[in-house]
């Protein structure tokens, strides 16, 4: 177990380093640099040079990369202040420390994602199990049909519809906004309920289908049939035998979907004009802001890698046949 965690952590660190390197060199290799963009169309060479110097762009590229990467471990000193240990540099565009900006924006993304994950896991798995339990009935047909149609919807289509119905035309709710969950959990829930529902709808539909298929497959297994044959109650077999087995493929897919979840959060943020990580990525890209882009990419990748390791541990817990080694 411990060995597994150590091995995976080392692998994750290596992957992060490579992602950082790829991001950095792709960004630097592009013929345009931020300095000339910030300088504008009629730029004197002297001014361009001064901007470069201020941003540290006059240093050799390898040196810049080293400064950035070592800054994450040791921290860096900038002319206008020190940047403590996990230092992701200073944004070219706004001048803020990237780490602080990310910490400022990230709670929105992560709480919204976690919230909708709870929704889609509870509703999706519940509906899927119910459909499998009552296979062939009206409930099953409705659940299957609805999940098929809903999974074809897109967040950027469903979002404006939800806003039109719930906010603009009826005034039942207010425009989505973010209130820190630590300050006001109720306000957080009310403010983010529409984005969370919209974001979870598509995932709910997908997980309903998956849970149903997985459950039906489990119910056809030999050990389930044997349990039924020796007289165990339908409910006991369903929940103690089939349910646990049907979770295995779902945990696997959930682990694979983490990146898609983050992507879904990004789309949701953009749809509802919320200031999260996705907006940050768009800003970084549109302003050619290298440190900001690096920070967002590394942070996103870090998160996915950590959660992937967690998913593998959960996987081993759910499926006793799997041994972590």
């Amino acid at each position, binding site marked *: 177990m411990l060995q597994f965690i150590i091995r995976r952590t080392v692998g994750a660190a290596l992957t992060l380093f490579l992602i950082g390197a790829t991001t950095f060199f792709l960004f630097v290799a592009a013929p*345009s640099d931020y300095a000339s963009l910030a300088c504008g169309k009629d730029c004197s060479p002297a001014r361009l040079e001064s901007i470069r110097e201020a941003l540290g762009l006059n240093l050799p590229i390898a040196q810049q990369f080293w400064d950035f990467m070592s800054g994450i471990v040791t921290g860096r000193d900038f002319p206008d202040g020190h940047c403590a240990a996990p230092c992701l540099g200073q944004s070219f565009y706004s001048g803020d420390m990237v780490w602080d900006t990310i910490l400022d924006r990230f709670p929105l993304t992560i709480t919204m994602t976690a919230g909708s994950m709870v929704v889609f896991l509870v509703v999706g798995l519940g509906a899927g199990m119910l459909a499998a339990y009552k296979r062939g009935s009206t409930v099953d047909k409705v659940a299957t049909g609805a999940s*098929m149609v809903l999974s074809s919807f897109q967040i950027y289509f469903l979002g404006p*519809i939800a806003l039109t119905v719930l906010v603009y035309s009826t005034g039942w709710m207010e425009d989505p906004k973010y209130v820190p969950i630590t300050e006001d959990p109720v306000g957080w829930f009310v403010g983010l309920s529409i984005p969370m529902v919209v974001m979870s709808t598509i995932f709910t539909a997908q997980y309903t289908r998956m849970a149903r298929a997985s459950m039906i497959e489990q119910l056809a297994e030999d050990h389930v049939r044997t349990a039924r044959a020796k007289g165990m109650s339908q409910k006991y077999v369903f929940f103690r035998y089939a349910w646990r087995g049907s979770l295995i493929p779902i945990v696997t897919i959930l682990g694979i979907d983490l990146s898609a979840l983050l*992507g879904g959060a990004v789309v949701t943020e953009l749809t509802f004009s919320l200031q999260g990580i996705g907006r940050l990525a768009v800003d970084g*890209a549109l302003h050619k802001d290298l440190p900001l882009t690096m920070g967002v990419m590394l942070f996103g990748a870090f998160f996915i890698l950590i959660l992937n390791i967690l998913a593998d541990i959960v996987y081993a817990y759910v499926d006793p046949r799997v041994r972590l080694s």
Partner: protein
Amino acid sequence: MTSPTKAEGSGSTVALDPDLASTTEVAKPKKLEGRSPGQLMWQRFRRDRTGMFCAGVVISYFVIALLAPVITALSGTNPYTLYGQDPTYADQPVLDDFGLPLGYLGGVSGEHWFGVEPQYGRDLFAMLLYGMRTSLFMALGVTTLLVITGVTIGLIGGYFGGRTDYWVGRITDFFLSFPQQLFFIAFMPVVTAFFVDPREETPTYFRALAILIVLWLLGWMGMARLVRSTVLSLREREFVEAAKVSGASPWRIVRKEILPNVVSPILVQFTYQLPSTILTIAFLSFAGVGFVEPTPDWGRLFAAGAKYAEQDPAFMFFPGLALVVFVLCFNLLGDSVRDAFDPKSGR
């Protein structure tokens, strides 16, 4: 010489006789003809009503998109004219004083079948048709490229196995660990900057090329994994070993023995991949880093729809409905193709 066997009329000599052989062949009932796996698949697919219907819908989307200029010639509109601002059309007002469409459902009328865009007064029908053309054919190109790359990499990993497979697998994992959507957003401008000076206007073709490259870089892994695992199991099969023993070159084994057996998973994956590529392209335009004004694009219509949602919610209706129907049909088609190839995988 009179052959005793001929006199006896045994089977083997009958077959040797050209006259008799031809008559027996004609007499043979047609049912005995062998069917290739492709024919079997096609037969099963044809019986699947949902699948056939959805295939029809999907094909008609592509045909409509391809014929966008012809159809818009019929409706007499085009996606670039600002019907609300152009003085030529001043006698047919489409927008009110606030820049909102006149009439119902976003200004649906005889001239503007799906209504007009608020503020500019562009024709939504033409924008949608041209937008579909951009998105669908872009996605077709990207997906084909992804499939070719994924299949090649998967074949290399699966066929050679061992150390090659290990490193190919590590590279695949590495690409998989990128936060995909964030990468797409972050690298669109960067890749565009490879071709054009960022201070100048980017031509649409370079934007399309940039989208192609970005999606291609991070899109091949699923296919590569699928092909690798299939090839890995095929590699140990007897017919491949037989080919090896009889001295076939690796290229021949891959081409003649392995590829025909991975065609069906590839095709199934392709039908799932294509709609998701369309959605990713739409997502890029929605985020504001894909296609930009005035290129008509499906995703851009959603960005505009989100902008106008408060004043003119009807604007979103037709593009959204079209997308939902398309994705739904494509997903159902994917399921049908899978079922047709593998009758065991019943739903």
